[in-house]
């Protein structure tokens, strides 16, 4: 397929894929590779440095950092991937319907959706968490709500352009029902910018979840999450630098890879967009 060949040629795509694929694999293979149970405490070896038994050392409860690292990817990825999917579905639907309907109805839908943008994202997330509790499920809902407007905006403006095209007129003229026109003709033609946004939203979602976990408002202990580990590690900077180092590195690499993937997709799917990077 031509698309695949283009992907492989793009350096950013290859780099991000190299980073992201192992990370995604970690989700499934983590439990298999991990040498210890991430919740198991070994009180005789707290805050130890790396050793054969504990490749990255232990935390303040004597838990294996390496194992926690491997398990920690799951909640972050769950929140990021499922939440983004939710935002993508909701946002695209709202944006396309609003764009196709046009007029007052369309504007009204978009105004309502855009009120979410009045809040800085982390504030809204904190508010939801404060009231409805923490945990992966609530975080997924928060991410989906927070990023719906981004997808909606893109879907809306693209739909406005596509809707005027004569091939859409033709679909209507042959008697295709409105859902058929929206799903079969408009949606495939507004997909490219939405896919780019998926990648960028995933990286924002990872940042958000890890930030919340860092503050103690995300994934709750004892279940591990990278942001949470960093938060816990901060009191022990001078004692065991590895504690804070490894989750930080993994987090940064993942976010960087997701961002680069977004750039790569932009290069591949829409070369008309000016080079912003």
């Amino acid at each position, binding site marked *: 397929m031509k698309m695949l060949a283009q992907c492989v040629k793009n350096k950013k795509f290859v780099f991000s894929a190299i980073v992201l694929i192992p990370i995604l694999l970690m989700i499934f293979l983590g439990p298999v590779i991990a040498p210890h149970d991430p919740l198991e405490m070994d009180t005789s070896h707290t805050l130890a440095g790396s050793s054969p038994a504990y490749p990255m050392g232990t935390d303040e409860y004597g838990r294996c950092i390496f194992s926690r690292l491997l398990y920690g990817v799951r909640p972050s990825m769950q929140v990021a991937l499922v939440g983004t999917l939710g935002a993508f579905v909701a946002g695209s639907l709202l944006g396309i319907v609003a764009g196709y309907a046009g007029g007052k109805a369309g504007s009204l839908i978009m105004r309502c959706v855009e009120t979410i943008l009045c809040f800085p994202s982390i504030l809204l997330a904190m508010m939801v968490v404060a009231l409805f509790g923490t945990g992966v499920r609530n975080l997924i809902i928060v991410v989906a709500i927070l990023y719906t407007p981004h997808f909606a905006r893109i879907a809306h403006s693209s739909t406005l352009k596509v809707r005027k*095209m*004569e*091939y859409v007129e*033709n679909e209507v*003229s*042959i008697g*295709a029902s409105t859902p058929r026109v929206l799903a079969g003709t408009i949606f*495939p*033609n507004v997909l490219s910018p939405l896919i780019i946004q998926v990648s960028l939203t995933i990286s924002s979602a990872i940042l958000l979840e890890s930030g919340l976990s860092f503050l103690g408002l995300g994934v709750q202990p004892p279940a591990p999450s990278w942001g949470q580990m960093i938060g816990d590690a901060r009191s022990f900077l001078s004692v065991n630098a590895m504690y804070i180092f490894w989750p930080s590195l993994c987090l940064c690499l993942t976010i960087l890879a997701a961002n680069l993937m977004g750039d790569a997709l932009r290069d591949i799917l829409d070369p008309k967009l000016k080079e912003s990077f």
Partner: protein
Amino acid sequence: MGDILLDVHHVSKTFPVKGGMFSRSKGFVHAVDDVSFQVERGETFGLVGESGCGKSTLSRALLQLISADSGEILFEGRDLRAMKGRELQTQRSRMRMVFQKPFTSLDPRRTVREIIAAPIRVHDRRIGAAELEKQVLELMDKVGLSPTYIDRYPHEFSGGQRQRIGIARAIALDPELIICDEPVSALDVSIQAQILNLLKDLQQKQNLTYIFISHNLSVVNHMSDRIAVMYLGSIVEIAKADALYERAMHPYTQALLSAIPDPSIAGKRRRIILTGDIPSPVNPPKGCRFSTRCAHATERCRAERPRLLDVEEGYKVACFLYESKGGLK
């Protein structure tokens, strides 16, 4: 008149011009203003006029893509505007359109196969893949497209080929009437002839009736049996093609014809240059729409709108200059 396929009665369509903070209506564009005409089965009815005269709006209104504000559109005697749902859907397969821009009239995400098959699929959900392919190939053959192109994408084709795909799509459901909205305006001159010939060819083979819309009078003349001239939303003249070309009664038509560079015209036609500004379609002149630019305009022209009247058999003009010649329709 022969068997009338399409009978358009006093169709009007206005668009509100929005502006201001709350999208208040600032005025109305009278895109189509009290238009009436009839199209015989089997003929090519030409519709000519400059950009902005309302031809495209009219064509969309005929196909029920937009809803006219008033009037009747009788297709085979039945009013399309009164139809809904299933009935309208069945009628839709009998009136199709060939669009102007080859680059935006085809879905870039679909293959030729999918584009041509789409109308067939909409009207027959249960058709099998093999049967569908057979029909698509037949249609491609009729328009002169090689069967090897069936799985290619629109961007791989030239303008002329894309129009062929559009035409194949239009004849897919064996329609009665095809509205050709500037089908060759975006093509190179050499290709234009090919497509026009294809259209003529298909008309015979498939028993088609055409409404042929264009701003190019010579192309319209070449294709049409009868021609209607539109100006700012109204029809100002309808006549047989040859008669119109020779005698052009309405001052606007005369000006249009004079602008055609045609070395074959024996007595060199004097180029009529229109003076005055084109009135804004939002605030059309009270009387005759053309009065602001017409050399023969009188006070009456500015105050009253002339109606489309027969001046002789099969020749209608909307102009006070000829009123004495014709009676009421």
